[in-house]
């Protein structure tokens, strides 16, 4: 006994252990936590870092819109500023009602971001719970939840969102509902798959052997290990929601005035493409950049968390 303790104490100085395979690279990655993986990813992946910066800037602009925006986004001066070209006073010009496009873009970011985040959060929360239950409980619960997921997944998602929006009427809250309904099933599938594999892990067996209750196993042992996957899903679902909103706006069932989303701005501005291109180019490019940024960040996150996902 004494010897064993000595050996262990000695080991503390050399905490590294080489796993059976001499794959030095993989083994070194494995040692890090999620957070530090992400940090080192940002250090190495310039594009992802830049994307994060863009996203942070957009978020800050949206949060501090009243401070950042040079004008009231709804202030009209149609008689003087209608279609004013970009200038020092109005960086991105003015729209058909003489409103400052830049200010509207900043306020529009609020709606676009909220639409990116909220439905994704709701959908993923529902999806995670469903996926956990389905995967862990199995049998009837699994069957029922998965059939529901099948139904949702069998729908063409945009059509489903359209039907929901038409049923409920156009409003921000209804967009949340529509997109949540459309998106939960994807998360549920993925969480279920991961739950199924985690369920077979020895640490779960150990917990079962100890007599830990089902739902505690789910919450304590399974869910935390799904987190890398959920982070990746989250970062890739946000841009998807933003794009869905712009599609709904095109069909006239997206954001509702006075709130203005980027999707709505693109849609309304597109009729002036020939003469006053900034009206549609500015929000369009804004969407492009924001969504690209989320995509790059998401890709980076996925690459960084890949070793976790394989567990």
């Amino acid at each position, binding site marked *: 006994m004494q010897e064993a303790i000595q050996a262990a104490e000695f080991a503390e100085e050399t905490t590294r252990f080489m796993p059976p395979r001499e794959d030095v690279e993989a083994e070194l990655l494995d040692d890090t936590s999620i957070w530090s993986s992400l940090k080192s990813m940002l250090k*190495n*992946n310039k*594009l992802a870092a830049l994307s994060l910066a863009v996203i942070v800037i957009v978020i800050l602009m949206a949060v501090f819109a009243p401070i950042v925006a040079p004008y009231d986004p709804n202030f009209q001066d149609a008689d003087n500023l209608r279609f004013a070209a970009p200038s020092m006073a109005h960086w991105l010009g003015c729209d058909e009602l003489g409103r400052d496009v830049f200010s509207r873009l900043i306020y529009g970011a609020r709606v676009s971001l909220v639409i990116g985040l909220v439905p994704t959060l709701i959908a993923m929360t529902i999806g995670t719970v469903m996926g956990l239950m389905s995967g862990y409980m199995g049998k009837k619960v699994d069957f029922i939840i998965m*059939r*529901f997921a*099948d*139904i949702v*997944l*069998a*729908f*063409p*998602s*945009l*059509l*489903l969102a*359209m*039907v*929901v929006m*038409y*049923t409920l009427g156009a409003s921000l809250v209804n967009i949340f509902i529509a997109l949540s309904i459309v998106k939960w099933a994807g998360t549920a599938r993925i969480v279920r798959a991961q739950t199924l594999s985690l369920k077979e892990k020895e640490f779960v067996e150990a917990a079962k052997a100890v007599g830990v209750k089902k739902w505690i196993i789910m919450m304590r042992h399974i869910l935390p290990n799904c987190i890398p996957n959920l982070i990746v899903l989250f970062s890739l679902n946000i*841009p998807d929601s933003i*794009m869905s909103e*712009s*599609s709904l706006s*095109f*069909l006239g069932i997206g954001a509702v005035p006075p709130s203005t989303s980027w*999707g709505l701005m*693109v*849609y309304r501005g*597109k009729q002036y*493409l*020939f003469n006053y291109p900034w009206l*549609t180019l500015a929000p*369009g490019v804004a*969407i*492009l950049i924001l*969504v*690209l940024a989320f*995509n*790059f960040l998401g*890709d980076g996150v*996925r*690459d960084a968390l*890949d070793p976790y996902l394989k567990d």
Partner: protein
Amino acid sequence: MARYILKRVLISIPVLIGVVFVIFFMLNVVPGDPVTLMMGEHIKPDLIEAFRERMGLDDPFIVQFFNYLKNAVQGDFGMSYKLNREVSGLIFQAFPHTLKLTLWAALVAWIIGIPAGILSAVKQNTLVDRGFMTFSLMGVSMPVFWAGLLLQYVFAYKLGWLPVTGYKTWQAMIMPSLVLGWSSAGTIARLTRSNLLEIMKNDFIRTARAKGLKEGTVVVGHALKNAMLPVVTMMAIQVSSLLGGAVMTESIFGIPGLGRVAVSAIGDRDMPLLQGTIIFTTMLIIAGNLIADLLYSVLDPRIRVE
């Protein structure tokens, strides 16, 4: 194989019924009475009532639902309220155009996505990688209608190379398939890239190299086929997203497909038409899933039917 297909088809029946039910339910709780929209303004209320009764609109919801189901099984999706035509006829008239667009778009998506994915993977974390991924992700990051309009503006209006709209000639199909295909190329490129990177870490790649194979042969001959397997299943998911994107693409490029039918049906509260369209697209998606699974089983010897 045949048994498997049959089994899969049988499994998808409850899903379809579920879809029908959901749509039916949602459309029956909405405000707005289709009958008053259909009838003239001077019709007396009792005539409207008679009409409702004839159409079975007074039956309890569940009875209506089963009646609908019964007819649908026989291929009768009812009459469009607004267009006064057989829903099935309208769908079959529009469907080929959507299918054509979707197939073309899928082709474009693969032509852009797969090489971009491969090159990005091979040149991981280089400018080439970033460049190709940016290009293919740009498609996902632009509102389809916006990208479509810009393309029209440049290639049809400014340069005059292509017709603004149309679907009958190959020239006319270029822009719509590009817009729609590009929008899902990013997904494919991303999947190809990550799969390929993943596969390249496998032991059998080392084996292939150890055999003395050229790097190109290793990537194309050994890694690619493995990496393509999940990409093939992606096809199924794509059917859904392409059909969604087709709604807007069709509007912008004047293609008389299912998406247009669905959009106008929603706007007109044309329940039979909307139901029919959604059920039909759902069947397409389910069929797409089935085909993807079959393809997978053909390509992957590990799960091939013995």
